[in-house]
Structures are given as C-alpha cells and as structure tokens.
C-alpha cells in the first residue's frame, strides 16, 4: 500500500476537524473536533517519521499527545464551568467579547 495514503487520510481527518470547529455549536463537539485535528497532525507526524526512517516525527507526536492531554483537562474544565453557570454548552452563548 502506498504510504502517501496515510497523508491523505490525515488531511481528510484534519479538514473534518476544522469544518467541525467552524460549523458546530456544541462546545463538546467543537472540542472533539479540535482533538481530531491534533490527531490528524499526529498521524502525519508518524507517517513522515516512517517515510524518513527516523524517530523525530514519532517524538513530536508524543509532545502533541501531552499537549492534547493538558488541553483536555483545561478545556473540559472550562466547558463544565460554563455549563454550570449558563445551563448551555453552546459556544454561541459565550459571545461576550463582541464589540
């Protein structure tokens, strides 16, 4: 199997994630889409690591995972707090920054 297919898959996953972030309103779903993008990037890292025959890409993907884990902790906490105060997990309700 051609190894570039992994890259196509990674691109598709990233696009799905990006579109999801832009179009979905539920904070949890947006959050999951962000995770999807991160993992798409991870897939690309690993693929490049395979193509180049070294470990640099794999190491980078571990960094991404650590960052993603941290992000989950902080992000979920924010979402839970927001839900508690507004009884809604819609990102459009949290639009206090406008104007």
């Amino acid at each position, binding site marked *: 199997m051609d190894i570039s297919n992994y890259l196509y898959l990674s691109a598709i996953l990233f696009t799905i994630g*990006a579109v999801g*972030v*832009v*179009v*979905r*309103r539920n904070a949890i779903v*947006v959050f999951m889409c962000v995770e999807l993008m991160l993992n798409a990037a991870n897939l690309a890292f690993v693929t490049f690591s395979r193509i180049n025959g070294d470990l640099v890409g794999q190491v980078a993907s571990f960094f991404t995972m650590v960052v993603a884990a941290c992000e989950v902790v902080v992000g979920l906490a924010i979402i839970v707090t927001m839900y508690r105060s507004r009884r809604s997990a819609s*990102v*459009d309700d*949290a*639009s*206090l*920054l*406008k*104007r």
Partner: protein
Amino acid sequence: MTTSTHLVYLIALPLVSSAILLLLGRIADKWGHIVATLVSASTFAIAAIEFFQMRSRSGDARAATQNLFTWISVGSFDVHASLLLDQLSICFVLLITGVGTLIHIYSIAYMSHDHDRRRFFAYLNLFVAAMLLLVLGDSYLNLYVGWEGVGLASYLLIGFWNQKPTYAVAAKKAFVANRVGDIGLSLAIMIAFAQFGSVSFTGVEAGVPHASTGALTALGAMLLLAAAGKSAQFPLQSWLGDAMAGPTPVSALIHAATMVTAGVYLITRSHFVFDASPTAQTMVLIVGGITLLFGALVGTAKDDIKKALAASTMSQIGYMILATGLGPVGYAFAIMHLLTHGFFKAGMFLGAGSVMHGMNDEVNMRRYGAIGKVMPITAVTFGLGYLAIIGVPPFAGFYSKDKIIETAFNAGGTKGILVGGAALLGAAITAFYMTRVIVLTFTGTKRWDDEAHPHESPSLMWIPMVVLAVGSVASGFLFNSGHALVNWLAPVVNAAGEHDAKEFLPPLTISLMALGVVSVGVAIAILKYRSNVAVEAPEDVSILTKIVRRDLLQDDFNDRVLVRPGQALTKFFVAMDNTFIDGIVRGVGGVIAVSSTNLRKIQNGYVRSYALIMVIGVLALIATIWMVTL
C-alpha cells in the same frame, strides 16, 4: 590673585533680602523698605572695605577671587561659579552699591504713598544682586546669569505700575529689545566655547592670540550686539525712552546709572577681543558715534523731562561706547565717564523725580517753569548735575568727556576727525538740550495749574540728591588728579601701557573748542526758551522737528520693518497650522476612525468566526508559501 571668602555676601545679602520681602508678603509691609535699604547699605560697606583692602595690596595681588562651587563639569570643560573682584569690577561695585543705596533711601520717601512699596524694594534688591553678579562673575557664563537677572529686574520695575496698559507694554518692549541683545551674548558665549574651549575671561584672553581674525570679529560683533541691547545703543535703542514708565528712582538707578552701562562693562571686560580685531573695534566706534548723536538729537525735542534725560543717557552711553572703541587708551576714559555719569545722571533723575513729586506727577516741561523758586535744593542739585553733564570745568563731566573727545581726535587720520567731530558735535547738542531742560523747568515764568502746589521734597529725598551733586562736582577732579583712575585700571585694560601715538591738537585747544561749542549750544537754548514758552507743543513745525519728535522714526522703522512683517509671518504660520498641519492630523485621525469602525465588525464574539478567520489565515499562509516556493 588673592583669594577672598566674603565676596559672595555682596550678592547673597540683597538676594536673600529680596526673597524674604517677596515671600513674606504683606507681613513685611511695615519694615520691608528699611531692611532693603540696610542691606543695600551693608553691601556698600563691604564694597568699601574690599576697596581699601585692594588698595593696600599691590600689583597682581590686587585682584581677588572666590570660588563658590563647580557649576558645570563635562570632560575637559569646567565652569566654576566663581567671583572676580579686580580694579575694574570694584569701580562698578562701588557705583552700584553706592548709588543704589542712595536711591533706596530716596525711594523710601518717593514711594511712601504706594501700597506696593515693599515689592518695589524687593525688586530693587533683586536688581542690586543681579547687577553685582554681572560685574563679579569671572566667566561669560556667570556674567550671563547676572545679565539676565538685571533684564528681569528691569522688566519688573518698568512695569511696576502695570495696571496701566501702556506701562506694561513699555516693560514688554524693553524685555524684547533686551532679548535681541541677549541672543548676541549667548552666541558670543557659544563662539568663545567653540573657539577656545573655555568661557572664562582668562581662558578666552589666553586663546585670543591663536584665534583667526574671522572668529574674533564674529565674537566682537556678537558682544557688541549684546552691549547694544543692554545699553540701548543703535540699533536696539528704542526701548530706553519707553522704559521711563517705571518709577523715577528706577530710571535713576537702572536706566541711567547702572544697568544700561553693562554694555560698556562687557566691552571693557572683553577688551582683549576688540584689541585683537580692528574690524570689531571699528564697529564699536560706529555704534557709539551714531548713538551719541542719535540720543542727543532725540533729546532736543522731548517735552517729557524723564524722556529728555533718557535720550541724554543714551547719548552719554554712546560716548562711553565710542571711548571703548578707541582701543586701550579709551577704556579708562569710558569707565571714568561712566562713573561721573553715574553721579550726575542719577542726581538729575532724582531731581526730576523730586519735581514730579511736587507737581502731581506732571512730566511735561512745558507745564513747569519757575520751579527753582519753590524747590531751591532740587534746582541747585539739578543745576550742578547739569553743569557736570555739559562739561563745564571743574565739574565731573568736563574731565571725563573732554578726555574722550581728545582721545577720539588723537585716533588719527580721517577716523580721528570723524569720531572727534561727532563727539564735539554731540557735546554742543548736549549743551543745547540740557540747557533747554533747565530753562524750561527751573526758570522763566510759572506755567503750572493752580491745583499743583510744588514744594521742596522731604529730606530723605534731597539728601541723596545732595550727595550725588557733590559727586557730580568732585568726582571728575578726583579721578583725574594724577591720572588716578587711568593708573588704577591700567593693569586690567591697558597692561601694555599704551598711550596716544601723537596728539592731534594740544589738549588745551581741544578743551577750548569743546567749551566753545558748549557755550554756543547753551546760548541758543537760552535765547530760544528764555520766554514765551507755549504750554502746548507747537504743531506748525518743520518736518525735521516732527521727525525728531518721533524719536527719529526709530519706532516707525521697527514697526514697518520688523513688527508688521513679523506679525504677517505669524498670521501666515497660524493659518498654515490651522489648515495644513491640523488637516493632516485630522485626516489621519478620520481615516483611522472610519477604517476601525469597519474593522470592528469582524469582532463579533463568536468562537466559530474567529476559528474560521484563523483557518482562512493559515490557508492563505500556506498558499503564499506554496506560491513562493513553486
């Protein structure tokens, strides 16, 4: 050089007293004038002690210095705030403190009805402090501080009655004209620093032999400009007449005896510059010559007694400046005339003040007449000053003015005849206008209203007048006996011991010529003003008289050539500022306001739209990189 420790008190005492009087305010009203007068008297006492100590020393040890503190220290450039009292400065210090004290005493009575008398005395003390700093500073920078200080004091005192708008304008005019001169002094300091790396008198003097002629001429010209501003010399003379708006003691002290002679001091102090630059020296001669005739002519047409005396001051300082332009021989005579002038002109101003005091502040001489009968002491003291100024022997002015005329003729060649002729002509006109003042004021028939009750002034006023009159009588003889003053000043201004190469005419002949023209001037004035003086100045007079009445068009000239173009330029700049500069600023502001109003719409608060912009941004970035690398 001797080191002294108490020169500083000369300046500190009046300065502190001035500050106290100003800061304490109305609390000091009762005793302020007494404190100020005592302080002034004590500075005179210090000066007298210094003088006698100086006389007891000899040679180089006569000059005393005191280093106060290091003022500026940058790299190799050091300016110390230090004082120098040498044979030249002590003449000024004695004149300033002596005449100053007499005028303080006089002012106690003269200003007794003024509810701001304390403020007046505070300013007088401020003036004395600044003037002493001017003549005691040992560098041009120290001198400059005093120079500006006397300018400020002069401004405050001319505008002392600034509730009258014309007086306030006169003060402003004096200040502005002085600023023009001050620019000359500051440029001179900069030239000195650039050329010699030093601004002290000794530093500049040491550098002069190595400097280029052009630099020395520029330095001399700037010093002359400074002197012209402060000493009301052509072309910056126009402020002195208006400065008579100040109280009469101010006119006597500042605008006759002391401050206006600062220019003579500056040129004499900088004699090494002028001795080394014949061009600058000639400029000094020309300025002095023009001003002595200018002032004398203006004096002939003034009906205001103070303005006539002011024009005379201008003319007499012209004599001094002329003398300083005559080289090493002239400096001592300039200073001699300055000192004798200090006596007789201050005395005459105080006399004029005394007359005004008795005449409800009337200044128009056409409304005086026959005052000699009711104010005998004033008339006699004024008369002695008059005899001194026109140069009748053996009064003071005879010795000093005669020496200047003589030295001018001895300058030799066409220059000598021109300058000497101008000085001689000036003496004749001086005799004319001063006789006119005397005849109009003290003799003839009474022309004053019945409401005026002229009376002799109180003793606090006439005692200073008597002292000054004694000076007007005796000082010239004292200074000249055995060439006392010339020898005294020689180490400072004429170290080489130069004297006139040859005599143009025997001194006696010149004296007789001077006396001849003086008696002609006196005779004309007596014949013309002996009787039938109109109370109103006649209108049907020749065009020449009209021009002279308008101060030889000095104000018209300044107005047309300087003031109005200046105002037009200012208006142009205001219009430019309002339309062009403000237009740019408002335009920039407007563009930013409009674009930010539009840009603000992006900021809608929705996370997804921010995310979309980010995605678009990243895509644009990738596209750019892709296109560039492709």
